[in-house]
């Protein structure tokens, strides 16, 4: 009967509605240049023919997402015309009438339905908790950690992006793999790659997992690969799905001979090693080490100051950061570092796959590795590691521990995205909300096996409080605010980089020391 089913999921609906209400209230909050980016894409896709989409450059925010996202914007633009036709004019740069804001914000809230559906599917994959009250159920905790994720809320609904929709597709694909519907999962991921190519970060995990666990149907008794169980049919099916998706996406552009232009738009390697605000990754630590060494070297008279460019000594966070002491880093080096960092994890699931959970863990490691070592990484990319990790966090104590550290530092590193005074209370309140909830619920979930974090970790996380106070309250009142305005950003990014790196190491240890799910020969 329908009534018990409704009652069973009523808490989920309440969570979804609750967060949607908050999203609606944030309609009039600050929005970043990403708002104009998407308005421009609405205009470009609506007003111009397909052949012009990747050539159009009236606005500086050219189309740099793959074709499926362009089609998505095209679809949205047909609804947009009922709100305000003027936003669809390409020449109307920075057009932000109330109707435009309303439409864009509502479109994000509406497309979040994909995310909500994906979360529901993920919750269904949680283990059953019979007899626990609602707030202690792992499905409830997972739903809240995902639906009310701080990073997603502020990046999507204040800063303005469509990550909810995209992560919805990703999580749905993961859920399908959990449910052993691998072809659907593969299709969803192929679609996702054609929506936003940043998900290439986790493509190795998908590739190896599908090859190992889907194309080879059986394992040997000790869990190792049984070469004879290779199924060419499955490989062909996978290949067809992926290739046809890409064909539909890029086909029109290949036919028009525009493939190179599209690729150059998608992968603009002319940008620097780091974004203007350093993402909290290895290169932030590398940069700071370089700066420290150069200052030390000058002080100890080992180096000649005249050899450095003026900017590198006193300059702020510039796109093209010239390394003075340590060797410069090129895109190729970052690629090699990234591959090296994820290779052991990928090998590990090849040799001893742990089913869908092992795949998920590998995916998080790929995302984190790419975040840590990638070229021109944006700090928002940390969400690609935090969101999937939530699924693991509600099932294992070790993962919960890593999740708490990663999510707290990762979310904190997003603070500089909202730099306006009006949004300061919102970001602090929402951060506190998420942090208190995650700590409290995960601690309770694993309360039987002692405290979740050790004292060093707790001290590190508590250190975020004085860091915030210094960066946002104390520092602006000092005189250095004018001469060295980048210091708070630098401090934030370096401090958080430590936490992110630590989480990466912890995750790796858990993969390399995990017992494999051996036993009888398993067929998938």
């Amino acid at each position: 009967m329908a009534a018990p089913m409704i009652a069973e999921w009523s808490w989920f609906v309440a969570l979804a509605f609750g967060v949607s209400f908050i999203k609606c209230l944030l309609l009039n909050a600050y929005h970043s240049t990403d708002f104009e980016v998407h308005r421009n894409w609405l205009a470009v896709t609506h007003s111009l023919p397909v052949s012009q989409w990747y050539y159009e450059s009236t606005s500086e925010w050219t189309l740099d997402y793959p074709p499926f996202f362009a089609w998505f914007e095209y679809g949205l633009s047909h609804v947009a015309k009922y709100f305000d036709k003027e936003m669809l004019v390409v020449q109307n740069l920075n057009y932000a009438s109330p109707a435009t804001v309303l439409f864009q914000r509502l479109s994000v809230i509406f497309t979040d339905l994909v995310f909500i559906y994906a979360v529901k599917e993920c919750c269904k994959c949680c283990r059953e908790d019979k007899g626990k009250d609602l707030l202690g159920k792992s499905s409830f905790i997972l739903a809240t950690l995902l639906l009310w994720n701080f990073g997603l809320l502020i990046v999507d609904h204040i800063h303005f992006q469509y990550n909810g929709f995209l992560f919805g597709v990703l999580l749905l694909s993961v859920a399908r793999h959990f449910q052993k519907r691998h072809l659907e999962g593969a299709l969803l991921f192929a679609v996702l790659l054609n929506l936003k190519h940043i998900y290439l970060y986790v493509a190795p995990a998908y590739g190896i997992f599908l090859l190992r666990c889907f194309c080879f149907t059986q394992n040997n008794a000790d869990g190792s690969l049984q070469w004879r169980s290779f199924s060419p049919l499955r490989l062909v099916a996978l290949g067809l799905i992926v290739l046809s998706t890409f064909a539909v996406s890029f086909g029109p552009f290949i036919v028009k001979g525009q493939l190179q232009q599209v690729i150059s738009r998608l992968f603009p390697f002319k940008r620097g090693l780091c974004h203007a605000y350093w993402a909290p990754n290895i290169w932030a630590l590398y940069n700071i080490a370089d700066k420290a060494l150069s200052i030390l070297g000058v002080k100890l008279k080992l180096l000649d100051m005249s050899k450095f460019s003026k900017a590198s000594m006193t300059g702020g966070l510039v796109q093209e950061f010239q390394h003075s002491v340590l060797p410069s880093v090129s895109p190729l080096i970052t690629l090699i570092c990234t591959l090296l960092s994820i290779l052991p994890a990928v090998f590990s699931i090849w040799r001893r796959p742990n089913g869908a959970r092992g795949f998920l863990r590998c995916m998080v490691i790929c995302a984190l590795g790419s975040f840590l070592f990638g070229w021109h990484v944006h700090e928002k990319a940390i969400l690609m590691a935090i969101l999937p990790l939530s699924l693991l966090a509600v099932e294992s104590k070790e993962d919960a521990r890593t999740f708490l550290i990663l999510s707290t530092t990762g979310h904190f590193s997003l603070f500089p995205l909202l730099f306006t005074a009006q949004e300061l209370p919102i970001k602090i309140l929402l951060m506190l909300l998420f942090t208190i909830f995650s700590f409290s619920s995960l601690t309770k979930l694993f309360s039987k096996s002692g405290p979740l974090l050790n004292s060093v970790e707790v001290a590190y996380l508590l250190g975020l409080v004085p860091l915030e106070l210094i960066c946002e309250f104390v520092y602006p009142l000092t005189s250095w605010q004018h001469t060295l305005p980048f210091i708070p950003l630098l401090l934030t990014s370096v401090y958080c980089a430590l936490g992110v790196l630590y989480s990466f190491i912890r995750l790796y240890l858990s993969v390399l020391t995990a017992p494999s799910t051996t036993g009888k020969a398993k067929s998938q």
Partner: protein
Amino acid sequence: MENWSLVSVCVLLGLTTRWAVSFSSYSGAGKPPMFGDYEAQRHWQEVTYNLPVQEWYFNTTDNDLGYWGLDYPPLTAYHSLLCGHVAKLINPAWVELRTSRGFESAAHKLFMRTTVLFADILIYFPAVILYCIYLSDGSSKRKVATALCILLYPGLILIDYGHFQYNSVSLALTLWGIVGLGLGWNLLGALAFSLALNYKQMELYHSLPFFCFLLGKCIKQGLMGRGLLLLVKISLTVLVTFALCWWPFLSDPQQILQVLHRLFPVDRGLFEDKVANTWCSLNVLIKIKTLLSRDTQLLLSFALTLLSILPSSIKLLTKPTLWQFKLALVSDEKPVCLMMNELPLMAVWFLLISTFSMLPLLLKDGLLLPYTVTSLAFLYLGVYLLSHQIPCLTDVFFCSNRKGALHLVFLQFTVSLVAMAGLSFTSMVLEPPARLPDLFPVLVSVFSFLHFLAMLLYFNLVQLTEPSSKKSQKKTN
């Protein structure tokens, strides 16, 4: 989850909602020459900061009472003075005498909104949390749910963080009074309520229940002996509080008279604008404003107000329990929050009506979005949390073996909700016919008034016909 974390989550949700609403416009934004309540509050900061106390309530060259003259008791003035000092530190242009009139800027708006948030965090939130923890029944989950619903009451949020006022301060002080009385800290309760009275004179509506409750307690303890001592202590507390608040004005009887004159402007008519009260609604049928003389209107209003709260107060005098006290207080809208735990459906219903009754005002202030979102959220939350207290709420509409009365109440609730939604929608979207330009505000007022009347009768009924079984388990002091 631990209790403290649940409570923190509720507090954070309440604060987030408030601050998000504050992004919206305020009353009189960009509307010279008079602007609105926001400008009034800013003006009071200017007046209290720059002028000596003796001139605050008087019409002088520097203090034009026609331009938002002070018409709240001294405690509001002191609060404005404090804010004025802080404003001067940040940007003196905000409170410059005369030149700061109509000052509007993003930074100033941020400052003003922060003062409201600050007052809320300091006084209102602790009062609500204490009230829910110590003075409501049920499991800790239920208490937390009650707290969340009270904190998310849209009316207070929209007026304080949208339109712009400091209602939460006076409400909080009253709530502290109730908490004090409920926990047996009579002097604290008396002190807090006296402060509330000195903050906004509207709290006089609640003074009779407070008075009867305290007097009833004293009588219960025996008027000869401990009761008398208690009475003396309470009276002293109240007198001292009033004396301290009115200290600067006590030297000159002219001062006192002028302040009272400002607080109770009997020169104004029975009602301004379109309010959801008896007179406005009655005026639709019988033109009372023109029929009766000014003095008769005054007397009638006073007499009927007294009459409406007299029965509950007398009952309270004879039976000074917390439950009776709460029932007696509920003649005004906002204390209906207190009923959230015991009569959740009624509380949610009437709080929605009270928010709805302010719709014309909110529309004028450009608060359409926050009004819609917070009302829907409050309704959804109230019904969702309710359905966990009344088992299988969803089944009420499917099963046929529930009591007919409950069915009827839900039906009325639903009809009322549909009407509210319909009226809201038409007010927002449609233009009224040219012959009746005030059609929608009047409809809203009459609709709300009828509900308020029903609420008054209902709560009086509950109080007078108190069934012995359930309610006698309420805390008695």
